[in-house]
């Protein structure tokens, strides 16, 4: 048992030294502490209740950045599916109709997921002026047992 622990610690120690050495010798070494994604915090984050309120009032449209498969299984009521992975073609089909000044709330599966951030970046470049993120995403929405709509994908 002690021998196993000693060997495990030795392999981990050796690995740490090797990893550090290769990282240091690489042309562009990674910093040990990962800096925060510059896009995080760029767009105002809404709570689930705020998202629901704006949708009920008709003052914003929810944009689901997940793939169509997940959107089809369930999404925020009246949300539009603009998957980050196929943004270009999907936007050409259904996104062009969205008014540029209308508030859009983008969400994906949960947490500050990269799909939301990717779609927000695209929308910003395309000239959308009022953009929000719902960082809680689909996982939080389900956890809070908020209203859900299931349908065929918009694409």
């Amino acid at each position: 048992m002690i021998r196993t622990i000693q060997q495990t610690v030795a392999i981990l120690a050796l690995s740490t030294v090797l990893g550090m050495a290769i990282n240091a010798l690489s042309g562009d070494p990674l910093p040990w502490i990962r800096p925060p994604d510059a896009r995080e915090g760029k767009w105002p984050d809404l709570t689930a209740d705020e998202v629901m309120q704006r949708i009920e009032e008709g003052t914003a449209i929810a944009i689901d950045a997940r793939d169509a498969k997940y959107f089809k299984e369930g999404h925020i009521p009246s949300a539009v599916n603009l998957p980050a992975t196929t943004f270009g073609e999907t936007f050409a089909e259904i996104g062009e109709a969205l008014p540029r000044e209308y508030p859009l709330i983008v969400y994906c599966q949960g947490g500050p997921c990269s799909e939301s951030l990717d779609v927000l970046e695209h929308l910003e470049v395309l000239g959308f002026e009022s953009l929000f993120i719902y960082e809680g995403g689909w996982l939080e929405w389900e956890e809070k047992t908020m209203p859900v709509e299931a349908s065929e994908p918009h694409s």
Partner: protein
Amino acid sequence: MNPKTSLLHRTVIHPYFVMFLRLALGGIMIFAGAAKLIDMPGMAESIENYRLVPHAWVNIAAIILPAVELIAGVCLIAGIWMNGALLIVTGLFAAFIVAVESAIWRGLNIECGCFGLPDSEIVGVQVLVRDVLFLFATIPIWISHFGLGVNREALEESAVESGADV
């Protein structure tokens, strides 16, 4: 062959088969570890995508984890520090299974980052099944190396007959 030498000793923990598993699993670990060490930023992205490691710690994992795979793989093949190597390799496969299962459960549509390959497959059941098979493949090595629940005498006899190291 002595009748004491059971079917188990002649099949799943036969020294040649165990050696094959050590070479296969060790080779996979070396290949994956080396590929990830070459592309640490890509590895960091893959780890980040799973959203299991706190953002600030992602790079630390991306720097150390591939080296752990590489060295554990080398040890497994060379038979050096076998106890530690076997524990680490088994632990890594178990961790990969938890990560993949968790990603599937959360509906994450992400590349698995397997073997450090660019444009690797999307996380799904096939990735999970493969990792489970890899985990199962460590069992004969465990039994052979530690003699878990088997007749050690028969195991050694089987090794002598085949001329291999246990």
